[in-house]
């Protein structure tokens, strides 16, 4: 389905995850973050950039992997994206929902 955000039309699935990463830009990220009640700081952007680069490299994301990334530890990850960090951060980053149990 289509959704208008930051003056742009983007394609999202029924859970609100973007289905075409090429439509993502920083303004879209800011707006998606605002929907999740998160104000993005430079730390948030570093984490989002890491998630996007892992996605581009076809790496399956998990909490454990994020914790071992050297970019952010698990405690800070939960502090930056308090509710369901992996899902929330993926949604803001414009990448698919990680299908991970760990």
């Amino acid at each position, binding site marked *: 389905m289509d959704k208008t955000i930051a003056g742009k039309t983007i394609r999202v699935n029924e859970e609100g995850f973007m289905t075409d990463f090429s439509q993502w830009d920083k303004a879209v990220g800011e707006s998606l973050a605002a929907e999740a009640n998160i104000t993005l700081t430079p730390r948030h952007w570093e984490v989002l950039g890491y998630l996007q680069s892992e996605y581009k490299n076809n790496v*399956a994301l*998990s*909490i*454990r*992997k994020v*914790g071992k990334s050297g970019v952010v*530890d*698990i*405690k800070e990850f*939960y502090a930056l994206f*308090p*509710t*369901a*960090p*992996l*899902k929330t951060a993926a949604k803001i980053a414009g990448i698919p929902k990680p299908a*991970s*149990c*760990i």
Partner: protein
Amino acid sequence: MEETKGRIRKMMIILSKATLENVYAAFVLANGARMEGIEAEMFFTFFGLEAIHKKKLEHLHVATVGNPAMHMPTMLGGLPGMEALATSMMKKEMEKIDMPDVHEFLEILKASGVKLWACKLAMDMFHYQREDLIDDLDGVLTVGDFYHQGSGEGTHMLFV
């Protein structure tokens, strides 16, 4: 139900066993709750205490006797070395799917905001002291204290 519209707000998970498959089941459930934005607390009781015992947590085994899913005759499962073999095989498979070991999993749970409680009665029974258990433990509780921790709407309890 009316107030939370069926939404799960908090999971209270009781672990009473020390076999690896049960410990992992409880850990995955607690971690999975946090990943979905659900609060989680764990209560370690009876043999479950071994999962947070400093000297024992790295030596937990898979059960090969009385476990039909092992698909081996019970007599065979009881042979010396069988548990160790099954355990090392399971650990190899777990590493392949990015599953942390018990020690690291506890660190992940703690960093994710899961509260970890030890059962006072079981500690007394096994003569464990607070210092025998991991430093990350949030405390030692009675069963009544644990129920109190779970008060509020949308709380679910699980016994492993």
